[in-house]
């Protein structure tokens, strides 16, 4: 290995070491797995939360650079534990604690806690849940990671957040990354058709304006 290569590699390692990731998942085994995968990829600061309630607390306690959350964020199957969490949450933040990924993301985006409203969020969802995907998108997530998880897709999502961040939109009923992202390349011949249609519309507007 050449001497020149070492500092560059160190720089890369240090770069990821500065990032703090919050992993929110009700399943302990999945939290552990995500932690191992992220560590293998080079991240060093990983914090965990079992549910949306804990997630909000962690986000308020420290600076988080990236959130990876599951869709299903039920508090607990233990009713007493759930009641306690609900009461504590209500007294601390007001309202009901987030019980799914979308309400957790909305809570962050609304700026109700001390969390950064702009924090990048990746949401993991099941493979056959189109409603969930739409719901997640409308709640304000930056990226959706379809299950089953694989490292290549996870990396793609992180690269998107770093290299292709989307502008934020603020409107009456939405705050989050701009939902119009994909620029679908037009098929052969479609570009010409589109130009023609635009020209026709322009001409029609001109006719209306001039009263022709």
């Amino acid at each position, binding site marked *: 290995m050449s001497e020149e290569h070492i500092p560059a590699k160190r720089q890369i390692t240090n770069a990821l070491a*500065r990032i703090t990731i919050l992993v929110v998942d009700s399943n302990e085994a999945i939290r552990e797995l995500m932690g191992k995968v992220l560590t293998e990829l080079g991240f060093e600061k990983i914090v965990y939360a079992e549910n949306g309630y804990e997630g909000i607390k962690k986000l308020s306690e420290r600076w988080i650079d990236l959130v990876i959350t599951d869709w299903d964020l039920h508090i607990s199957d233990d009713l007493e534990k759930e009641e306690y969490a609900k009461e504590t949450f209500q007294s601390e933040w007001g309202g009901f604690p987030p019980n799914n990924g979308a309400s957790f993301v909305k809570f962050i985006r609304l700026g109700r806690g001390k969390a950064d409203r702009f924090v990048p969020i990746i949401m993991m969802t099941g493979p056959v849940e189109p409603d969930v995907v739409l719901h997640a998108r409308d709640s304000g997530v930056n990226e959706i990671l379809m299950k089953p998880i694989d490292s290549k897709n996870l990396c793609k999502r992180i690269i998107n957040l770093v290299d292709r961040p989307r502008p934020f939109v603020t409107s009456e009923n939405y705050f989050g990354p701009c939902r119009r992202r994909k620029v679908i390349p037009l098929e052969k011949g479609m570009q010409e058709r589109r130009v023609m249609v635009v020209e026709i519309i322009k001409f029609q507007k001109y006719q209306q304006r001039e009263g022709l």
Partner: protein
Amino acid sequence: MTDEKPKVEMIGPSKALRAKIGHHVNMNEVFNEDAIERAQNIIEVAKEDFLKTCKHALESVIKILHKDALTDIDRKKLLQTSQQITGEAETLGYEALSTTLHSLKKYLKNTPTPNETVLRKYADLCSVILQSNQKAHSAESREILQKALPELVEYFHSSGE
């Protein structure tokens, strides 16, 4: 009448993540093929481990489902185990298992007095999945569902699940 358009504002993309990582760092180099493969190996190991741990949990679910009457403790245990297995199975790609247990969980939550026959069908379905080494994915899983338990599939349809 005035047409007031809803106020929509655009805020420039946040470059905080890039700034913290460093502008000189090429993310494609950071997440190179080696790193991705190493991370994927961890997922593959987790998949194998899950098969081992899940076997015992699934066997206990089948045992409870074969009981004549469910007690509150049984019900709680079923819900807890199903919840745990569903999450992992879905994340690790065991679709047949996750779909079945998700459906069972939904059934138990929505039905105060579960039907014995339906519970037995769920037990049969869990056994089929267990026997097939839980490796059934998408098309295969649908085939297992339809071949093994047409009545339960019918039940899923009629209940809108």
